[in-house]
């Protein structure tokens, strides 16, 4: 049976647990940092030494930790790309711009257990020879910024931060930087531009890979809040032990934000892949099922940009058996293990691990229109397909949900959406705004067509001009006057 497994949120919701340093220390806080600082160089048989920093980086690789922000990229691999020979300072940025609709996990950590994040950051910085780090926090989280600043001051006063940390000779400063409320600042290069004081226009890659040309054109690591917290636990328990949590290639725990039409929306920490989508929705330990008398209609499994799953959808997934042979299994959407790889194999993603549940009362056209408004509003407008496409789709959906639809609008929408993703844009926002349209219309096409058809029939009844693809001809205008 699927269980909650609290690693990151072990104490956060315990009665009496407070975000101050004393409370954190009473719960074993900063012990992993002390452990990391006390690590000695390891001697190799060939006389070479492995520095403690390299040992931690290696351990993070062994842990199999994957980024918790959305892309699920290997953290150890990301760190290994950092240009350590440039002679330039290396920066670390904690991406706390949690903005993906449906996602509210990082907020829990920062508001309830800020020292856990700070400790994870200090260890990550130490492991990567970083002496200046930033927490880029979403502008709307004003209290979070206050809490973090207070926690940073406490950490400084206890010499976990600042000069000569715990007598190790290692210096580190961390600053909190508040965003101004733009989703695109969660894109790591947009975030870097914003931190530099510019418009958060994501950078082109190549050449601006943060690991080489990041903040102020220096090597930079950008990690999500939850990812950085995990670093602390990897040092505490060892990478090999951490890797035993979860499932192969999907290690550790994840905090799932569950929202929508379930009885118990909220956040639930699970071992990655040890619970299915169905269990997360229906198990009394998690969502507790749909509202009484409702049937499941759709699930967005990884934040609003992830492709939607339709209730009853079946996927053919390749599974490695005990004998090492790959076998193909048909799996119902609800039986998909909630991990990185299964959801990608099923054509969507776990993204920021935000599950949005929609029951049969949901107007799917309205739901997509709502999502499209968000992405049209948040497109930074730098590159053409996303800038123009996101608003176009939103306007078309607005028309379709306000009585001006056409039966052809379903195809119309998908054709627009098809011209946006797949490397046509500078950043992944192109995918974020087009995947919902492609998947909603693709999987619920009959509803979109019916909506448009109803509008057409009404216009025919009321003898209203159909919506023309081109403006009326001049002679038609003349005839009308």
């Amino acid at each position: 049976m699927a269980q909650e497994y609290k690693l990151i949120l072990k104490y956060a919701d315990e009665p009496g647990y407070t975000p101050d340093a004393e409370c954190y220390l009473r719960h074993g806080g900063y012990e992993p940092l002390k452990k990391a600082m006390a690590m000695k160089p390891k001697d190799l048989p060939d006389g070479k030494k492995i520095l403690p920093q390299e040992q931690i980086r290696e351990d993070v690789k062994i842990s199999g930790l994957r980024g918790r922000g959305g892309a699920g990229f290997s953290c150890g691999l990301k760190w290994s790309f950092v240009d350590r020979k440039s002679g330039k300072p290396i920066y670390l940025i904690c991406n706390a711009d949690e903005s993906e609709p449906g996602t509210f996990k990082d907020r829990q950590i920062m508001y309830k257990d800020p020292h856990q994040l700070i400790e994870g950051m200090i260890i990550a910085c130490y492991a990567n020879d970083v002496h200046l780090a930033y927490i880029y926090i979403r502008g709307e989280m004003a209290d979070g910024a206050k809490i973090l600043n207070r926690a940073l001051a406490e950490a400084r006063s206890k010499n976990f931060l600042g000069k000569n940390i715990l007598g190790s000779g290692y210096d580190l400063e961390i600053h909190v930087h508040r965003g101004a409320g733009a989703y695109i600042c969660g894109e790591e290069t947009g975030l870097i531009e914003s931190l530099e004081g510019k418009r958060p226009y994501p950078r082109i890659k190549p050449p601006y890979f943060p690991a080489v040309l990041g903040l102020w054109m220096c090597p930079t690591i950008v990690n999500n809040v939850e990812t950085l917290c995990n670093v602390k636990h990897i040092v505490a328990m060892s990478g090999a032990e951490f890797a035993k949590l979860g499932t192969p290639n999907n290690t550790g725990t994840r905090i799932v934000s569950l929202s929508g039409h379930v009885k118990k929306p909220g956040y639930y920490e699970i071992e990655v892949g040890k619970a299915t989508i169905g269990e997360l929705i229906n198990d009394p330990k998690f969502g507790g099922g749909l509202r009484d008398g409702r049937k499941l209609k759709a699930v967005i499994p990884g934040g609003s940009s992830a492709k939607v799953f339709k209730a009853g959808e079946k996927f053919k997934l390749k599974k490695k058996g005990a004998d090492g042979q790959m076998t193909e299994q048909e799996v119902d959407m609800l039986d998909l293990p909630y991990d990185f790889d299964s959801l990608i194999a099923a054509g969507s993603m776990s993204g920021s691990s935000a599950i949005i549940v929609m029951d049969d009362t949901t107007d799917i056209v309205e739901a997509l229109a709502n999502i499209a408004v968000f992405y049209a509003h948040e497109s930074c407008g730098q590159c053409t397909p996303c800038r123009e496409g996101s608003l176009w789709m939103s306007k078309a959906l607005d028309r379709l949900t306000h009585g001006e639809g056409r039966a052809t609008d379903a195809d119309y929408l998908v054709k627009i959406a098809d011209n946006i993703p797949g490397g046509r844009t500078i950043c992944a926002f192109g995918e974020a705004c087009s995947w919902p349209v492609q998947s909603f219309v693709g999987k619920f096409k009959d509803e979109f067509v019916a909506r448009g058809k109803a509008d057409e029939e009404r216009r025919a009844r009321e003898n209203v001009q159909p919506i023309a693809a081109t403006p009326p001809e001049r002679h038609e205008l003349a005839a009308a006057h």
Partner: protein
Amino acid sequence: MSTATTTETTPAPAVEKIKVKVDGREIEVPKTMPDPISGKPIPTTMIQACAQSNVDVPHYCYHPKLPVVGNCRMCLVEYGTPALGPDRKPVMNADGTPKIAKSPRPAIACATPVSPGMEIYTNTPGVKQMREGVLEFLLINHPLDCPICDQAGECKLQEYSVDYGQSSSRFVEPKVHKPKAVDLGPRIVLDDERCILCTRCIRFSKDIVGDDALGIVNRGSYNTLTAYPGKVFDNNYTLNTVDICPVGALTSKDFRFKMRVWFLKETKSVCTSCATGCNIIIGSREEKIYRYEPRQNDAVNSCWMCDSGRLNYKWVGREDRLTDVRRPVEPGKSEKTTWNAAINEISRKLKSTASGSVAIVASARQTNEELWLLSKLKSKLGALSDSIPRTGEGDKLLVNADRNPNTNGARLTGICFTEMGSNLPQIAAGISSGKIKTLIVFGEDVTRHGIGLDLLGKLDTLIVSDILPNGTTRLAHYLLPGCAHAEKRGTFTNAKGRVQKFMKAVEPPGDSRAEWEFLHDLVFNVTGQDGFLTIEGLFNEMAKDVPAFKGLTWAGLGDGGATVQI
């Protein structure tokens, strides 16, 4: 002022070459090329490799002289790289050629570096479809007001619409509306609805001029180009943004609504407003000049020119241009005459002057050929000669403190010395003492340079050629109406010693004639020197005679000119 050194640059160190294929054709390209701003070597990009392969990749935001931003997405191409096996060694096809792994995602040609063995595909159905998609996105909110747009005829939206556009639009939503006719500054008007947000103007102003004046506000499709609040877009290079704007968003207040560009005749010329000698294109129609535009010459002005030089053309068409040849009838009175009569009279007079009794004040706004012809007169007559310096404030980009376009030409032909103007007091003294009885003035108002009305009144003969009336022309005994550079052909030698030719855009008004033409007649009459009835022949003759120009030919100058030792 220019320094007396050559500007021939030492050849760049050899750059490693790599082989790539563009649409199936193999080409060798340098591994690195200079960064447009810093000049430091940076990896060669796909679009540069394609250009070297003569394959045109459509683009809006990319400009070879600006930093790359990759925002328009028009240059998306497909590509592949040699496939590597598990042993990291290239996988070979059966025929021994390397197997190419095609990238599942396209890449922007403007920013993606080439790598050895890379294959770039610019004309696949996939690439065409992407271009169509981008173009459609660019057009949905565009006002499509081509009939009244100044950019019409030289608009990249129009050009690529021919290649990748649809004959009808499927867009049925209301368009986004943005500010129209925004007054950005004294010379620039912005139509935000036409803007495709390529940011060329922003990058040019920030990175080339160093005036961080423009930016984008708002988000997404509502993104709007604007000047910073309270800031007027007013540096001396603003009009270049009109040139590089690929659409009709930025227009020149001077040129807008004046002329459809397809009616303009384009003539290669050189700006005369300072010693830099920016290469330009004169746009004219029916003997009227409508605009100057910079013409690319990386040895001189890159792709740019200053606003003051660009707008300095209106004098050419002034109503009070000198158009009549005049000869003296009695003291203080002259009459209109013919070129033949005037030149013959002047020739006779000059031939009969005593050596040393003639002085010549030429202009460093005249061409090398004209100055050389005057130098022939000078040696025959044993004349004192000089020219008049004209200086202002220079800048870091293009404007030279020397405001004469041909100071070096005046020096190299021997009309003046390193210190231009140093002979003027001597000439004034010569007139004052009565030693100098004849003064020849070309293109300058000597009354403002120490040779006042009283001195001019003492002369037996005052021969003046100019374009516009001034204090000196009013006292001229013989007045010879000359031509603006736009009305003739010739060459200038710029501050760095680059000899550049310019062509004739419009006909001169009235009887005015190119100075080199009537100077040729005069020089032939006075000295007997002949053999250069065409500008080509004249230039080549001069090149044989003037040591610095040795080896140059009119034809060999090409469009970009040649640098000589100064």
